[in-house]
């Protein structure tokens, strides 16, 4: 938990998208920190998230909330789909929280519509996106 908090404190930027389909690249430097302190939850498993961040730098992590992702076997298709995207540096699935973590290069544009389409093609629904700049 402490490690995750430290990572979050070191985050340069934090952006969020409201799930209405816009790739949101707007940075809110500092603003995010306030939000997190004020109790907005990242809703990822802290240890899983910190493991995911190992070896990553100068990138942004899309934290995608997914409905219907109840089975490891079914979620495999999500991982395979995103691995085909050359922009994706790393991907992980957090079944317990219903999240998909996707690392992109810092200069790439994250398109929530594209993410939603990829996840829908595997049969689940992406409902919300948060972007963390690492």
């Amino acid at each position, binding site marked *: 938990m402490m490690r995750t908090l430290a990572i979050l404190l070191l985050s340069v930027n934090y952006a969020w998208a409201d799930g209405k389909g816009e790739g949101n690249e707007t940075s809110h430097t500092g603003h995010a920190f306030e939000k997190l302190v004020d109790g907005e939850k990242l809703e990822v498993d802290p240890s899983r998230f910190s493991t995911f961040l190992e070896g990553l730098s100068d990138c942004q992590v899309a934290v995608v909330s997914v*409905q219907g*992702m*109840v089975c*490891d*076997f079914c979620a495999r298709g999500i991982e395979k789909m995103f691995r085909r995207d050359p922009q994706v540096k790393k991907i992980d699935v*957090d079944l*317990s929280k*219903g999240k998909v973590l996707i690392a992109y290069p810092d200069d790439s544009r994250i398109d929530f519509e594209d993410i939603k389409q990829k996840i829908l093609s595997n*049969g689940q629904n992406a409902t919300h996106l948060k972007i963390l700049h690492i």
Partner: protein
Amino acid sequence: MLFSDNVRNAVYYHYSPTHRYSVGIEMVEDKFRIENYANLRLTYLLDRRNTDYSQQNLYFQLGFSSNVSDNHFFGLHGDWETRRWFAGFNLKSVETKAFKYIDQCYQVGVAPYLGDYGDLHTWIMVKTKKFSSEKGWTTYPVLKFFKGSTLLEFGFDKYNTWDAHLMHRF
């Protein structure tokens, strides 16, 4: 996908162009009619409901056989699952020149532990099935394991026959 029970052994290879439907070829060794044939199968997702904690599905299935007895089948398959609980059914109407029968199968299960992504996942299940060509229902335990893209399911009924189901997703 490899499948074996007291009625048939089958190898099924299918492709899903979208999550809505899949088409495939199933090679069947029919133990009941003692013949081998191929089925051309179509599976169509009629409805899917996703929530934060569950998914439920209803599929329509259709198949045509290559064998001389001109058989075909259609049916419904439904399931509902959370990470902990599973319930599903399969209804299949099979018609041939000589026979017409309905297969019914119902299954419930519980995951004894909730594994993380990448872990070995286990389900303890109970399956009950009835073929209209047989008297009574057969109910028996089933264990299901999956890890990564491979799933293995097997059960053992009172007639000492095995259900086995191996699936790999490419």
